[in-house]
């Protein structure tokens, strides 16, 4: 049994987009050890994305109506068949199914000339909030009726546990640190927590996957996620200001993205699109 294609793409896009975002720190980390940490974190995420895209590509190639739906993607095909690269490099913004949270830049809203102001507190806060979810997701998905997805989950769980520990350590260090690190960590949490509300509003593919046993009923993880988040925030002396949720619920997982995803994809996809037959 195979999971719905849009569910596989949702999981893959989450991993790829966050992996690409975090890779921005490569060569720019606040300290050498964190530079390495974020590069390794991205390597894991992009590795997970590859496994998921390979699985999705197989599904597309073996199903006539899916092959029809993805017929407009002609890049990076192998003997006419869709590959992982076709899905990663040749889909446009509206075809991505990742949560909006993954694509946000490493800073809050900027005004005036958009200079880059990467803030490591935002990076750490996001990695913590996402890893807390993914630990629970992969743990449950080990029992997926899609055997390949279950195998990917068992591997990914090992990796994301480590990410959670890394991000959690730093969040406590920032929150329970200096006045400035506390302020920046609190701002980051205040900025990002509202986007997490989207986790609990599954799109049609997520609901279908939960129905047929290939996916996980995301709402069943909410209490655990809250417990994980609240425990670490308390230790970090940080406060949650997101309850009740203030309003708009991000829609990235249904294909309606923030303005940031297009720029991220433009950078990530430009090489593959400029040289579609390149091999290295």
């Amino acid at each position, binding site marked *: 049994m195979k999971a719905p294609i849009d569910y596989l793409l949702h999981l893959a896009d989450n991993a790829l987009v966050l992996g690409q975002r975090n890779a921005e720190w490569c060569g720019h980390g606040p300290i050498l050890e964190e530079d390495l940490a974020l590069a390794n974190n991205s390597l894991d995420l992009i590795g997970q994305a590859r496994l998921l895209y390979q699985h999705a590509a197989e599904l597309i190639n073996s199903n006539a109506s899916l092959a029809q739906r993805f017929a407009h993607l002609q890049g990076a095909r192998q003997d006419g068949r869709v590959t992982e690269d076709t899905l990663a490099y040749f889909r446009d913004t509206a075809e991505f199914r990742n949560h909006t949270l993954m694509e946000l830049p490493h800073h809050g809203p900027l005004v005036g000339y958009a200079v880059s102001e990467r803030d490591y507190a935002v990076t750490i806060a996001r990695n913590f909030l996402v890893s807390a979810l993914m630990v629970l997701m992969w743990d449950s998905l080990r029992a997926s009726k899609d055997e390949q997805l279950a195998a990917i989950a068992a591997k990914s769980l090992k*990796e994301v546990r480590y990410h959670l520990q890394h991000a959690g350590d730093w969040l406590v260090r920032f929150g329970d640190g200096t006045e400035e690190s506390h302020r920046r960590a609190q701002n980051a949490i205040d900025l990002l927590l509202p986007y997490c509300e989207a986790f609990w509003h599954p799109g049609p593919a997520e609901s279908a996957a939960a129905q047929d046993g290939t996916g996980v009923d995301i709402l069943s993880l909410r209490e655990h996620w809250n417990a994980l988040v609240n425990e670490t925030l308390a230790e970090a002396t940080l406060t949650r200001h997101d309850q009740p949720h203030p309003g708009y619920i991000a829609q990235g997982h249904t294909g309606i993205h923030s303005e940031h995803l297009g720029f991220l994809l433009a950078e990530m996809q430009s090489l593959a699109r400029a040289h579609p037959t390149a091999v290295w």
Partner: protein
Amino acid sequence: MSAATEASLQAVSQALAHLTDPEIPVVSLSELGILRAVREGADGVPEVVITPTYSGCPAMGQIADDILVALRDAGLPGRVVTQLAPAWTTDWMSTAAKEKLRAYGIAPPQGGSEPATTPGVLRFSRHAARPASVTCPHCGSRNTTRIAPFGSTACKAQHRCLDCLEPFDHFKPY
């Protein structure tokens, strides 16, 4: 399985016995648990089954290439099949392989791959997951500290010995 098939699979295994991880040239692929099996494919061609370590480990492509080159050099047919389940774990590493790692200057994985505390998801909380101190591969002291949770490859973290003062890599339990 016929005796002839068995002999040809044996020949494939032998041709691959000398292959090592490109990043850790002292441990063989089967000792590391990457090379899982040599079997007969549905069409009679031998299949070499490998399993990735970390999802994004960049050495996997090199390892698959090395296998194909070794087979070609030995004049043997065969192809590489990647299999994810059961997920690779450092628990598969033999005692002999761990000793080779240590002698090479890498502290072998210490502690099991699964968090050893109570079941349920909250076992992933940071304190429960805090690793015990790792034995220094150079002087054997347990008086060591972790410098960074990540290192030069996906499978390693950086530690330092507080007695002999040497830095060293720790192969993380996975």
